[in-house]
């Protein structure tokens, strides 16, 4: 098992540690409910250094990324980031990722921890001439600072004007005297920032944030709350909601699938899917009784099994069971009642547009 540079700090904060994506990571420090609420009402800090960072440079960097990702990289300008995915030739998802345009011919690609090796190999296999691809995952630390007070906490540590960074934009500047990428992104649905920096500064940056955050009751947040927060927003988790058996069109990721952008890996397969219409769709489900749907539970329409829950939890904000899962398109319109088999009991659930948490 690998450790992020913050591992000893997690232990100091009495984290409960679990294996995740090849790393030993904090699942919670105090309690998932408390940490969830902290991010929705104040501010919390997530160590997400297990994520992978690849740097793509060179004359053909843009063409290369245009070929291997499904979103339109030519829409990026320096200082902008983009949510995207890599697909197989058959249109199914290798990984979902972020593409940051750092400068002309220079990009950073952020991938899921459990896919670092797989993604890197895939990218190397499809590399173009005059493109350099470097994996800096081990040398890069990533902290997500999320919540309504995140901007006020972080602004004390940088001259970069944080309130003028729009969503999915970033700046490269000094923060607590360390050069880093300050990105207005996150996985919680709250105002928040993600900080990418050289791992050697990890402890210094963590301590600076916690010192300035003290007045706002800042707290470290584990993967448990990260999961409940993202699920309330209906964000996909690779390995649960999307994987190499699902394509972006059925996973509600049509908005990042730019079929008309020119050639890319998976294009012809996705064109066909689009022309024929998807057979199944990833939908949101809200349980109608006090019950908790979980990954792997079966979804029914009456007696007929129609799908499986890919992610499910108790929503701390809504105080209801919420889930996502694939069901045939004919049942996928909002308002349709289906059932989730919860340990032998079929509980009604209503198909609901995500995000579950409307803000």
């Amino acid at each position, binding site marked *: 098992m690998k450790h992020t540079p913050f591992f000893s700090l997690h232990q100091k904060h009495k984290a*409960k540690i679990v294996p995740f994506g090849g790393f030993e990571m904090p*699942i*919670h420090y105090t*309690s*998932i*409910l*408390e940490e969830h609420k902290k991010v929705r009402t104040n501010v919390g800090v997530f160590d997400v250094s297990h994520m992978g960072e690849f740097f793509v440079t060179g004359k053909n960097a843009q063409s290369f990324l245009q070929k291997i990702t499904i979103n339109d990289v030519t829409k990026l300008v320096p200082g902008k980031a983009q949510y995207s995915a890599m697909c197989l030739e058959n249109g199914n998802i290798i990984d979902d990722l972020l593409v940051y345009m750092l400068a002309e011919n220079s990009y950073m690609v952020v991938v899921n921890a459990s896919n670092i090796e797989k993604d890197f190999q895939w990218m190397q296999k499809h590399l173009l001439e005059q493109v350099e691809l470097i994996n800096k995952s081990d040398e890069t630390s990533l902290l997500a600072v999320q919540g309504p007070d995140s901007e006020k906490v972080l602004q004390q540590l940088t001259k970069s004007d944080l309130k003028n960074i729009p969503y999915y934009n970033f700046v490269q500047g000094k923060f607590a005297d360390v050069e880093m990428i300050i990105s207005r992104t996150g996985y919680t649905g709250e105002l928040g920032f993600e900080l990418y920096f050289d791992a050697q500064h990890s402890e210094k940056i963590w301590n600076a944030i916690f010192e300035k955050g003290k007045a706002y009751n800042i707290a470290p947040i584990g993967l*448990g709350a990260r999961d*409940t927060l993202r699920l309330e927003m209906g964000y996909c988790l690779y390995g649960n909601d999307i994987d190499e058996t699902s394509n972006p069109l059925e996973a509600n990721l049509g908005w990042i699938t730019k079929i008309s952008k020119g050639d890319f890996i998976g294009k012809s397969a996705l064109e066909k899917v689009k022309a024929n219409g998807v057979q199944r769709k990833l939908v949101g489900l809200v349980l109608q009784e*006090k*019950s*908790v749907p*979980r990954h792997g539970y079966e979804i029914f329409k009456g007696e007929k099994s129609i799908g499986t829950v890919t992610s499910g*939890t*108790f929503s*701390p904000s809504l105080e209801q069971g919420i889930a996502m899962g694939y069901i045939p398109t004919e049942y996928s319109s909002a308002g349709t009642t289906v059932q989730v088999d919860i*340990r032998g009991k079929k509980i009604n659930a209503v198909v609901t547009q995500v995000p579950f948490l409307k803000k």
Partner: protein
Amino acid sequence: MNIPENLKYTKDHEWIRVEGNAGYIGITEYAQGELGDVIFVELPAIGKKFQHGEIFGTIEAVKTVSDLYSPIGGEIMEVNKAVQETPEIVNKDPYGKGWMVKIKIDNPKELETLLSADGYKKIIAQ
């Protein structure tokens, strides 16, 4: 870790406090810590009978769900309404306010098969 001496334990992390021919049943402090935030508890109806080791209820936590195993055979005399209304007391006070059910003990001899506080301590140390 708090493991009261006056209780008997199962390897599935339940405890029983014997009072006469009846016993109060709950989950241990270790169990509540492993489960994390309890969001609700499903308990049986009064009068239902359970064998030693049989599932008598379930605990749903945010991250996971767990069955409750009866440490002893008997008939449910009482269920703790408070844990159904305010399940967080299972986390806060697992040996006190967070008890689950009161059971009428069929065969007190079965109590001898349960773990002492020391025996249970060894199980969770593994």
